[in-house]
């Protein structure tokens, strides 16, 4: 009897352990930094450090890193995914919103979801890529190129619900990874080159019912509407095309907003064009706006402010402050008080030729004559920005904010812009300044002052994100296919591996059988590395 009871207990324990293991609960997401064996959300944690607390791989042993397995995507197109890792499974996305669940030990597919994407799907101003999924409880969430949000059963990949976020005929699309919070899934949209009116949405995680929508371009009667001349707000852009950060204690979401439309011809939209090129702090329960900070008023260079906001707490001038730090596409690094949006620091981190600096409130002091012109105006940074969608990383161990940098200028052209629903609404463009003078860099900034601590130069302007680790490394990738590791304190390169295809993705780290692994997409593959 005792023996039988013991057996029963063992069975119950193992079954319940299995169930618990497969549940990425909100509590687990909130405590993601204390679960370093997994990578549960796009930026690794709600505070969006893209930092791994794992420390097995160090500058002393990183030279021994070797590929463990490679998964090759089945859908051609750039692989921009941030893999998520939970409970022995890796979830990756491919172009055209494909989702594949992989066995973490071997890279063998467990299931695959292929949404039906219409042949005439619109994605104007970018590629058909997808940057990753969100996990919550037993569900995997993916935004699709034709602007749906889909909930998939984590065990089988079966669809639990599928809702239309916006009309793809008007060129709304989704490439960003959703953010799962307490009972809700938050999703941003793309379409800023096609005259959309941008918004951020939250959906009930269980039912797919929309919980709230907050427009990034205020309508008549709403604060900020006066910053749009005439009817220009209707086609004002302001896409929300990357994944934001979340402060569960304050109950606030921090989300970047993209360029105004049309991009390079601002004649039809006099005013600051709020809340484009801004960071928004939104009440996570209602979506209502708490504060905003506009980095580039009346932008005409396509300098979206969608880059990842990083949330940290620190003592500034003897006072404990809740901060948000971000390296903006416009060439400036900002530290704001995340309770009210007050700017504490705003300094250049890359070459820029359009502003003398920032005033005390953070408004750029613009140099005249840097607007796009018919003949082309040479300005740094290029319209791809001093940085772009690929993630920065913050290490609480070194106190350094690592920025993937693009050092490149371009000729900005101004052209005509006529709004036709669902078509490009850009008003010009750029011609890159070619040649050897353009380059990429990993820059380590003191997180509180923005001062440059070190730089590691790369051959060409980066399209890949960074991840710092507690082992004292910064991982990244290059356009030429190198995946590399730098010493987080000095920037000295300690390891590199040629993957055979350019990298345009973000690294992650996790444990497999108690051993630290690093994963990064490069070329048409997802590569997993570990020490022998």
């Amino acid at each position, binding site marked *: 009897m005792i023996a039988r009871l013991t057996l029963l207990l063992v069975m119950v324990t193992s079954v319940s352990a299995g169930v618990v293991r497969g549940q990425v609960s909100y509590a687990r997401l909130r405590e993601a930094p204390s679960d370093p064996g997994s990578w549960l959300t796009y930026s690794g944690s709600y505070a969006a450090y893209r930092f791994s607390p794992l420390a097995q791989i160090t500058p002393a042993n990183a030279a021994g890193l070797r590929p463990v397995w490679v998964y090759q995507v089945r859908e051609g197109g750039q692989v921009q995914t941030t893999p998520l890792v939970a409970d022995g499974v890796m979830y990756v996305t491919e172009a055209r919103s494909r989702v594949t669940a992989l066995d973490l030990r071997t890279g063998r597919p467990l299931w695959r979801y292929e949404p039906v994407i219409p042949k005439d799907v619109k994605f104007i101003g970018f*590629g058909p890529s997808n940057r990753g999924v969100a996990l919550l409880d037993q569900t995997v969430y993916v935004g699709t190129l034709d602007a749906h949000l889909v909930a998939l059963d984590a065990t089988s990949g079966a669809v639990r619900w599928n809702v239309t976020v916006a009309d793809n005929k008007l060129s709304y699309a989704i490439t960003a990874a959703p953010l799962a919070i307490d009972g809700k899934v938050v999703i941003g949209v793309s379409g800023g080159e096609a005259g959309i009116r941008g918004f951020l949405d939250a959906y009930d995680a269980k039912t797919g019912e929309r919980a709230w929508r907050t427009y990034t371009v205020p309508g008549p009667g709403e604060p900020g509407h006066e910053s749009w001349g005439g009817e220009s707000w209707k086609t004002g852009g302001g896409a929300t095309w990357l994944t934001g950060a979340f402060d569960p204690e304050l109950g606030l979401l921090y989300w970047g907003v993209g360029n105004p439309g049309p991009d390079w011809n601002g004649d039809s939209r006099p005013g600051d064009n709020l809340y484009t090129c801004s960071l928004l702090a939104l009440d996570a329960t209602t979506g209502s706006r708490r504060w905003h900070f506009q980095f580039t008023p009346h932008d005409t260079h*396509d300098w979206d402010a969608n880059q990842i906001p990083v949330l940290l707490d620190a003592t500034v001038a003897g006072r404990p402050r809740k901060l948000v730090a971000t390296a903006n596409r416009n060439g400036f690094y900002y530290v704001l008080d995340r309770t009210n949006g007050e700017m504490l620091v705003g300094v250049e981190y890359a070459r820029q030729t359009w502003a003398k600096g920032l005033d005390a409130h953070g408004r750029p002091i613009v140099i005249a004559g840097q607007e796009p012109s018919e*003949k082309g105006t040479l300005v740094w940074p290029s319209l*791809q920005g001093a940085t772009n969608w690929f993630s920065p990383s913050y290490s609480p161990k070194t106190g350094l904010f690592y920025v993937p940098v693009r050092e490149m200028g371009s000729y900005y052209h101004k052209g005509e812009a006529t709004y036709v629903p669902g078509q490009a609404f850009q008003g010009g463009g750029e*011609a890159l300044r*070619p040649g050897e003078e353009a380059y990429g860099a990993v820059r380590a900034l003191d997180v509180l002052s923005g001062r440059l601590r070190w730089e590691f*130069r790369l051959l060409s302007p980066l399209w890949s994100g960074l991840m710092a680790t507690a082992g004292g490394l910064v991982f990244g990738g290059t*356009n030429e296919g*190198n995946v590399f590791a730098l010493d987080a304190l000095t920037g000295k390169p300690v390891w590199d591996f040629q993957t055979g295809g350019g990298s345009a993705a973000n690294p992650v780290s996790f444990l497999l059988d108690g051993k630290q692994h690093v994963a990064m997409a490069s070329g048409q593959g997802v590569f997993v590395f570990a020490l022998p």
Partner: protein
Amino acid sequence: MVWACLLAVPVTAQAPSPPKPLASPSDADLERGHALFDAQCARCHGIGGTGGMGPPLNRAKLRRAPRDEDLISVLVEGVAGTAMGGAWQLSEREKAQVAAYVRSLGRVPTEALPGDPVRGQAIYDGKGACAACHIVRGTGAGLGPELTEIGARRGSSYLRQALVDPGAELPERPVPYEPNTYAAYLVVRAVLPDGAEIVGGRVNEDSFTIQVRDGAGRLHSLRKAELRSLEKKQGVSLMPTYRNALSAAEIDDLVAYLMTLRSEP
């Protein structure tokens, strides 16, 4: 937004269908196309489409654009593997206007070249010894750029400059995964740990390694971190100048010959 995907073109703007060519462009259309061409295309294709780093466009037949629709496609998509990107900064109407202007260039008489191509070919094969480094229709050595289609790729002014001052303007080629062009055949000087020196043309490079082919055709694969020094030389070429080796008339002849090297007239 435009984060720009890493293709040969900076941005894949998926337009529903390329703009239609203008059936009968007005003077205003041609004038507008002319202004846009001078501002944005002439840097490579020369004022009036006379060519330069990019091919001459003042020809009745364009190799990549036999029909007006093809010309617009080149403007929309660029030409993969070359420095020509899609002119996505132009609106659909502007693309059609530029295409109409480019077509009009083919109706003006083409540039008369002073040299004699037959004598030029004799110089190419004889005292010029060009085949020691270049391939034409399968013959020669592959150290320098292939010249089989060079008359369709470059303008005569560029070729003349390349013969007299080869390092002045190196040909450009796009680097995979980056919508940016880099100088091809860039001369580099690397000093190895033992002090040995390698001078040659850059074949490829990434942030950690560089591949160099020396004047004898030997390939050297080098890790940058292991080198004593690595220098990229601007304004020079592995190709010798013909400034003194050939007379002005002989250079005219050689340019005239090179300009005949294309599969179509």
